[in-house]
C-alpha cells in the first residue's frame, strides 16, 4: 500500500507515481511471456536469460506468423 503524502506536493507525487506505474504495466504487457508447466500444474515463467527461452520464443513467433498468413 502506498504511503499517503499530505499537501499539494504529495498530490503531485501521487499522480507521478500512478503515471509511472501505468507505464510499467503497459510495458510489462508488451513483454513476451514464456511459461512452462509441470505435470502437477506448477508454472514457471522463464526469465529473459533462461536456457531454452529464446528458442521457444523463436518457434512461437514463426508459428504465430504462419497462422496469420491467409
Amino acid at each position, binding site marked *: 500500500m502506498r504511503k499517503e503524502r499530505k499537501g499539494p506536493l504529495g498530490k503531485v507525487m501521487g499522480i507521478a507515481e500512478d503515471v509511472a506505474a501505468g507505464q510499467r504495466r503497459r510495458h510489462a504487457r508488451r513483454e513476451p511471456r514464456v*511459461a512452462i*508447466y509441470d505435470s502437477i500444474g506448477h508454472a514457471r515463467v522463464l526469465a529473459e536469460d533462461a*536456457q531454452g527461452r529464446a*528458442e*521457444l520464443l523463436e*518457434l512461437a513467433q514463426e508459428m*504465430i506468423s504462419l497462422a*496469420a498468413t491467409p
Partner: protein
Amino acid sequence: MGIVTAVPDSTLTPELALRYLDELSTDIRAAVLLDGGGEVAAAHSPDGEPPADRLGELASQLFGHADTAAEGAHGFQPPVTQLEVTIDEGALFAVRAEGWTIAVVAGRFALPSLMFYDLNAVLSDLGKQAA
C-alpha cells in the same frame, strides 16, 4: 430381453478433435496435433488450410526446448506438460499428454487456463479412444 439403443459413432479422429476444439474457442487461429512419433496427425485453421508440415515441424521442437528450460528451473518437476508463449501478435499454447502433442495459435488475449483446459480435454478424449 435387452434394449438396444442406437448411438451415433463416437469415434474421435484427430481431425474431428481439432474441429471440436475450434468450436470451443473462437480465439484459435490454427492448431496442429502430433502423434506419439512426432508426425502430424491433423492440422486445422478456421481461415483455411494451415501449412501443416511446417507447423508440425515447429511444434515437434517445442517440448525439447521446454525440457531444457525446465532443467535450469529450480523446484520444477520435469517433464514439461504444458507451455505458453505470448507475444504482441498472438499466443501459442501447447500440451503433451496421452502420447499426443497439441499446439494452437490463438489471439494474445486468450485465457491460458481455459485454453489448457480445452487442450487437455481433447487429448484426454483421444487417449481414451486409443485405449
